[in-house]
């Protein structure tokens, strides 16, 4: 079993805990297996007043929020565990496409930033969905289509095969100068989209790109099976 984040990083934890307690007095910290768990009531505030709250639990992985994405759940039974509410069948909230998160925040976030940002955004979205059946900040399409939506503008193509080739380079251990560009131009990578690939590799965690790639892979294989 790995060491929980707050045990492995006592200084960061000691710095964070009073800030967390002061800003979110209805959230508290406990330990579950190798996870540091923050749970309790997350308030939604408007004009200096709590207008809603969600019972949540946030499981911080051993690597901490700077290096990994916490697992978030609504535990009050208010949000159904269905894809249309962006909840996995095991109750985990799907806050975003992980690669998109790392692209936006390559250095990650500390716990407070993560609570104020992605988590609060997600639950404000749930509030809106309950009232209007729409996501105020938009949503990514389910499955591989959502992955394509995110990657397409970055690589300049909506073709899943092209995106897949880019992703294979993003996840590769090393880039080779002899490789042909994944865009299909026939040029060498460094004379074509080399800078794009380098930027993606520097911003997006490899594990998140691997997840995107496996989404696409599954979808493409399913398409091939259907076609045959």
């Amino acid at each position, binding site marked *: 079993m790995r060491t929980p984040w707050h045990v492995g990083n006592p200084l960061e934890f000691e710095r964070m805990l009073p800030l967390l*307690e*002061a*800003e*979110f*007095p*209805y*959230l*508290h910290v*406990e330990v579950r297996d190798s996870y540091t768990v923050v749970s*309790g*009531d997350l*308030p*939604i*505030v*408007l004009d*200096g*007043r*709590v*207008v*809603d*709250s969600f019972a949540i639990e946030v499981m911080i992985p051993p690597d901490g929020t700077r290096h990994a994405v916490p697992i978030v759940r609504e535990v009050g039974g208010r949000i159904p565990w269905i*894809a*249309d509410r*962006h*909840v*996995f069948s095991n109750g985990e*909230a*799907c*806050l*975003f*496409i992980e690669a*998109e*998160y790392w692209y936006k925040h390559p250095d990650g976030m500390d716990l407070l930033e993560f609570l*104020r*940002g*992605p988590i*609060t*955004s*997600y639950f*404000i*979205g749930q*509030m*809106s969905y*309950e*009232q*209007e059946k729409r*996501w*105020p*900040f*938009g*949503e*990514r399409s*389910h*499955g591989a289509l*959502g992955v394509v939506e995110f990657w397409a503008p970055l690589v300049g193509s909506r073709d899943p095969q092209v995106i897949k080739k880019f992703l294979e380079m993003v996840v590769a251990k090393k880039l080779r100068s002899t490789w042909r560009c994944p865009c299909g131009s026939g040029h060498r990578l460094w004379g074509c989209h080399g800078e794009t690939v380098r930027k993606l590799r520097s911003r997006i965690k490899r594990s998140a790109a691997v997840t995107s790639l496996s*989404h696409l892979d599954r979808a493409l294989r399913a398409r091939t099976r259907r076609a045959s």
Partner: protein
Amino acid sequence: MTDNEYLDAVLRDQMLVPGGPELTELERQRVNVVGILARKLPSAKPRKGGSWAKGTMNLEVYDLDLPTYFPRDEDDAGETLEEIYDAVADAMSEDYFVERRRSALRLRDKDGQADTHIDLVPGRFFDAAEGDAWIYQNNADKCRLKTNLDVHIAHIRDSGVRPAIRLMKLWNVRESVGMKTFVLELLVVDLLKQRKSSSLANQLRYVLEQFRDDADSLSVTDPANGNNDLTPALAHVKPRLMLAAKQTLAKVDKDGWQPVFGPVKVEDKRATAVRVAAAVPAAAQYRPHAE
């Protein structure tokens, strides 16, 4: 609005707001107090306890318990519990008016008027594990009491009935029942341990029915100290407890919960959702996904 929607709204109205004046001031005072302790009694280990740590704070009546325990082998605050209690009171007295309670030291501003909402609870840990501790009891039969902060906090915080606890605390204040908060919390947890999945309204009703009909059978034991029978603490409030429960249930039967907890801010949920979303800056907006 259903009973449960109404009670949820009461709980929301009673939340201390992140960044709000109450929390900001409480945190400012806490930092000041911790700083004084670090300067004058450096081996003190103050930490947040009470309703803040348990997640049961209400805006109407709130305070911050700061259990301030000393390591077993440190004597910079004194050797006996009484000396520790006095040393912590003395350390604070330059900056605050200190009101000596049974185990706690309530801090007021220097002229004794404004309440800082901070209670220091001096004590000493049993051992190096720093779990169990002794706290001093001023003017009591026993001058010391065994306790364990982590056990107390976990017992309430993880009870699964925190919303009911917060509402019963509010009821206790509004109806001037006068039951000690710690005792009330334990009672609610005990009474509802088989009813965690009931609706909030049904939970409250059940607790109040027990108070009205079966107050003589109520017993409370400190979860951190089996020898600390808290049942006697109920004796002097029992008549008021029974009467208030009876009156409350009569009100609820006649007119619902609103006469008990008062009006709540009713808002157009749809308009609120729109306004909340509109207030989120673009950089803090994220698009959810699903497989």
